[in-house]
């Protein structure tokens, strides 16, 4: 019964894995080797793994592509974004995601147009960096000693170069053998250029003065190595002047722009490299001939000048005749001149001696005497004048002295008068002061005597008190001091009475004591006593 349902589900059931594997087989079998044309898009790589990933696309479709590391390293044309290529490879899917992609084995630009576009693009880029600037160009040496040639060691190119050098000017040539096309050739050419530059000056291998990078004609693809950036940069960086000679006249590669000089062919490069030896030799001998001729001509003209000058020289005797004649004349007149000279001196002597007489001497003495007299007179005159002058001065001083003496005496008198008046005034004041003082003292004495009178014990006596004295006249103050039978004197206001005290009567001490300080009290007691 289960079969009954089978027609409805006739197709077998696959697992996803089965289907994926089946598809993978189908795809890989059917498209194991395809060539596909498309534009590179979304180029990513080379990755750190070395693989490159991108898409190939045309107007309406797109397919993922991959280039494994090993394949990429071998590629002559490296894939580049936007480049239209024909890629050769196989299709594959991997079951993990069932996406298919093309694994590219080889890649080539799709036609000359694509290559040209790539080259233009690269030229623009490197040009923008200044690699092609005229200012970078070096001058070629006029006659290089050693020429380095970077090219294939076999083939027509090196032969052409060597032949042409041989014709013009044989030179030492160093050939750095390289592959000039195909895989790795760009790297080799660049390495050769760097290698020549790295040779030390004066080393075992002579360093070239000039480099020629050469290759014969070929298709654009054949010459492509010389468009590679690595080669162009090496040529631009070369410190040795470099001639590029790649392809035929019409072939242009990027190295031509970076080179210091571009030769249309390898043969032309050899011509640029060296001058023609034979021509140089002719030139040298021409110089030599000219130099000799000029020198000879110079010598000849000098000789002529010498001859002419010699002719112009006057005869020696002629030259001497005139001085000789002068000498003769001088010699003849010499004694005469001597005589004349002596004569002149003699005359001067005569004149002088004539003037030398006594009269002259006397006149001089007279003159001196006169001067002496005059001087004497002037001397006495001036002495008198001096005396008079002194006397005048003295008289003047005397008068001034007298006047000042008088003035001084007057002043002294005035001063004395003033002092005397002052003394008088002071005397008056002293007298008055003394009188006043005496009066004041008298007043004081009077006042004092009145006061004294008032205070005297006599006035007490006048009031009825009496003063008791002992035999010696001393005032007694206490009854204790009075012995029995003592002779006493009592003074009253109007006179004294001598008395004798009674015996053994003892005065009450109480009364006696307070009375003692004052005599009047005692006297009172005595009075009382005497009253009792």
């Amino acid at each position: 019964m289960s079969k009954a349902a089978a027609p409805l589900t006739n197709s077998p059931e696959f697992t996803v894995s089965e289907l994926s594997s089946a598809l993978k087989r189908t795809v890989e079998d059917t498209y194991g080797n395809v060539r596909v044309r498309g534009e590179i898009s979304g180029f990513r790589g080379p990755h750190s793994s070395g693989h490159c990933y991108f898409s190939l696309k045309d107007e309406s479709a797109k397919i993922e592509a991959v280039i494994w590391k090993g394949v990429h390293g071998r590629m002559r044309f490296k894939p580049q974004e936007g480049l239209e290529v024909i890629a050769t490879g196989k299709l594959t899917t991997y079951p993990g995601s069932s996406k298919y992609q093309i694994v590219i084995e080889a890649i080539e630009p799709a036609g000359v147009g694509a290559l040209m576009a790539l080259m233009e693009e690269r030229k623009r880029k490197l040009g923008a960096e200044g690699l092609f600037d005229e200012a970078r160009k070096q001058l070629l040496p006029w006659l290089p000693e050693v020429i380095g040639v970077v090219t294939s060691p076999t083939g027509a190119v090196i032969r052409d170069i060597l032949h042409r050098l041989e014709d013009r000017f044989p030179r030492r040539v160093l050939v750095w053998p390289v592959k000039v096309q195909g895989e790795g050739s760009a790297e080799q050419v660049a390495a050769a250029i760097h290698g020549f530059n790295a040779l030390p000056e004066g080393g075992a291998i002579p360093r070239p003065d000039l480099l020629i990078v050469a290759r014969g004609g070929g298709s654009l693809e054949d010459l492509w190595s010389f468009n590679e950036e690595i080669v162009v940069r090496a040529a631009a960086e070369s410190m040795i002047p470099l001639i590029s000679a790649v392809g035929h006249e019409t072939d242009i590669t990027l190295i031509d722009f970076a080179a210091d000089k571009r030769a249309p062919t390898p043969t032309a490069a050899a011509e640029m490299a060296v001058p023609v030896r034979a021509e140089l030799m002719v030139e040298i001998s021409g110089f030599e001939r000219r130099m000799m001729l000029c020198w000879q001509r110079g010598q000849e003209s000098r000789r002529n000048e010498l001859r002419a000058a010699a002719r112009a020289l006057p005869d020696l005797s002629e030259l001497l005749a005139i001085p000789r004649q002068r000498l003769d004349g001088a010699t003849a007149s010499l004694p005469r001149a001597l005589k004349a000279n002596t004569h002149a001196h003699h005359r001067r002597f005569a004149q002088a001696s004539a003037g030398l007489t006594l009269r002259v001497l006397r006149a001089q003495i007279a003159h001196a005497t006169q001067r002496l007299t005059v001087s004497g007179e002037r001397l006495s005159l001036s002495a008198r004048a001096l005396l008079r002058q002194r006397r005048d001065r003295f008289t003047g001083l005397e008068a001034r002295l007298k006047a000042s003496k008088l003035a001084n005496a007057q002043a002294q008198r005035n001063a004395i008068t003033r002092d005397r008046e002052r003394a008088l005034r002071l005397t008056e004041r002293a007298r008055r002061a003394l009188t006043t003082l005496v009066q004041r003292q008298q007043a004081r004495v009077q006042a004092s005597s009145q006061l004294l009178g008032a205070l005297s014990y006599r006035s007490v006596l006048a009031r009825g008190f009496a003063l008791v004295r002992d035999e010696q006249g001393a005032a007694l103050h206490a009854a204790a001091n009075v012995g029995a039978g003592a002779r006493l004197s009592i003074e009253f206001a109007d006179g004294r009475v001598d008395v004798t005290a009674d015996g053994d009567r003892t005065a009450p001490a109480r009364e006696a004591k307070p009375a003692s300080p004052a005599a009047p009290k005692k006297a009172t007691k005595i009075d009382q006593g005497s009253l009792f």
Partner: protein
Amino acid sequence: MAENTHADVKKLTFETAIEELESIVKRLEDGKVPLEESVAIYERGEALKRRCDELLRQAEARVDKITTDSNGKAVGTEPLDVQ
């Protein structure tokens, strides 16, 4: 005598030598060189000419090929036989 005086000429490059030779010829042609100097520069001219000749005769065609080590560095030369 010229050999000693003009020892430096031996070291001149062809280009320098021929330039100097040319200038000597010009000066002599102008005819204004004093006698003594004219003799001297004539002798120098001779020496320069000999140097130029020598350099021209030296021209030897020797062609070598660079040999490189595994790193691509130049290590020596060997004759290159081009047929």
